[in-house]
């Protein structure tokens, strides 16, 4: 007779032991927590410092897209579906570029100003539509960067179609790499900690049920505005950083790829984890560089791998990996 079996998942004992302060009980528990964090940090750092210059630039771009994807996931965790990371990215880029070009403000000031100013400007721009939900909010964020792009083209402000060139670069590549990696890890761990706090969980509650959050006496629009500021500031930082990295800003910073790639990275990596989108970006960006050898067929292979990932692991790589890492699966007999 064939037995009826069911797969059961239970938490690994070491995970329970490494909860909270108990992690300090032994090296095994500490290592359990540190391993998944230290390996990517050290791994990416090693790659960034040891690879030749061309691939160093790839690492920088990857980090930038990883931050865009993390910020997209943060906004979606707060119930705001954004199709316009390019809007925030472009605003940050143009602020940094214009300040540097027209007012000769040094790089160590343009980046912070563009980060905060870009976040503020993006938030003010979207404040009138903050009441919209889901796809309606997404449509507005999708169309805004395209509109701004055409306005720049038509009015020829900020260099028009030519853009602004000859901006100050970073002192050297090492500073550049260290800076962007520090920013990326700060963003990731900062946001993860923030969203797990008592204050941060209100953002998640707005995504789950905004009416019940309102009925709990929470002004959801104030919270949404804060989330928008945090999310768009991160993107604006990326824009400002890339502007100085390439010493150029222009209409391409509002391009669709800055909106779409972060979403693809999140879908592959695992939505709702913040770390997943980073993993996704670390796969997609280098992959796209490797596929350059195939010329025109690049997009075909790229799309194929994307489809395979989504079909094989619809929950996302990070969800899958964290489940395998934290839980044991075993077969139990059904009573």
């Amino acid at each position, binding site marked *: 007779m064939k037995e009826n079996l069911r797969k059961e998942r239970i938490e690994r004992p070491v995970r329970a032991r490494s909860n909270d302060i108990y992690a300090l009980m032994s090296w095994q528990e500490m290592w359990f927590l540190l391993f998944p964090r230290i390996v990517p940090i050290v791994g990416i750092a090693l790659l960034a410092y040891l690879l030749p210059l061309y691939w160093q630039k790839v690492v920088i771009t990857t980090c930038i897209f990883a931050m865009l994807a993390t910020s997209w996931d943060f906004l979606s965790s707060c119930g705001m579906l954004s199709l316009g990371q390019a809007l925030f990215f472009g605003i940050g880029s143009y602020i940094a570029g214009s300040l540097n070009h027209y007012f000769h403000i040094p790089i160590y000031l343009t980046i912070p100003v563009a980060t905060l100013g870009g976040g503020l400007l993006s938030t003010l721009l979207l404040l009138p539509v903050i009441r919209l939900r889901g796809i309606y909010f997404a449509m507005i964020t999708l169309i805004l960067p395209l509109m701004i792009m055409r306005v720049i083209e038509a009015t020829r402000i900020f260099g028009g179609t030519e853009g602004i060139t000859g901006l100050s670069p970073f002192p050297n590549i090492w500073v550049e790499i260290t800076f962007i990696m520090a920013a990326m890890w700060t963003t990731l761990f900062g946001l993860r900690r923030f969203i797990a706090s008592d*204050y941060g969980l*209100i953002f998640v509650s707005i995504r789950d*049920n905004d*009416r019940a959050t309102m*009925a709990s*006496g929470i002004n959801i629009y104030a919270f949404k505005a804060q989330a928008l500021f945090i999310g768009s500031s991160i993107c604006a930082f990326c824009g400002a950083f890339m502007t100085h990295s390439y010493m150029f800003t222009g209409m391409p910073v509002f391009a669709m790829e800055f909106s779409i790639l972060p979403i693809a990275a999140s879908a592959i990596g695992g939505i*709702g984890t913040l770390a997943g989108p980073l993993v996704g970006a670390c796969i997609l960006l280098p992959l796209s560089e490797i596929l350059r050898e195939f010329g025109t067929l690049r997009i075909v292979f790229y799309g194929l791998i994307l489809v395979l990932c989504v079909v094989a692991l619809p929950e996302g790589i990070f969800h899958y990996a964290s489940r395998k890492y934290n839980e044991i699966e075993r077969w139990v007999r059904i009573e």
Partner: protein
Amino acid sequence: MAILEVKGITKSFGGVKALDNVSVSVEENTLLGIIGPNGSGKTTLANIITGFVKPDSGSVIFKGKELIGSTPYAIANLGIGRAFQMVKPFFHLPAFKNIIVPLSSKRVKASTTGGYGDKDAIALDVLEEVGFERDSSVPYKTASVLPHGYLKRLELARLIALKSDIFILDELFSGLSIAEVTSIIPIIEKILQEGKTIIMIEHRLKELFRIADNVIVLNYGQKIKEGKPQEILEDEEVKKAYLGVEV
């Protein structure tokens, strides 16, 4: 004195009059039941009182304050708590973290003295009050895996945590077994004993009439009857609206 005064509320959706000149007066520390067939405007009335829907005309006075035009969160902070008919908790959060949300509201912050209390401990206390076994794993489970009965209790816990003066419970008993309803009724009676006011929209008349002080009956957006449960039970017009029998 009436704690909540609803006067001449009219609301149309397109050509349909959901509410037609409805007035209700709720006395403090009583339980008011609102009954009526499907589509009679019960939930719309709750939506108007809690600020989710704006009426075409009429006014809602709570403790001498006009509520029409206020936002839902402002009304919640004034002390009107609302439990929804469709239970949709914060699915991604553990049950006790669901309660942190109302604990973070202005109303609770203003009423809590002595700095930062441990919100988790308060949340667990509130959950225990509505029947979550404290020493079990239930309060720590993600809301998405909790059974329906617990989700209804979670809605109630949200209002208790908010320290609401008025509890508006929209079909709290729907989808619950008789045993479950019997175990929730003492919680409701305890809330009443604490001096709170309750408005229950309900289809489970038998259970409602056991605990209600007053009942109003809505039909096609009009208030057709108001009185003690016993009077309502014997009223011919109510029987007709409810059962569709010709008398």
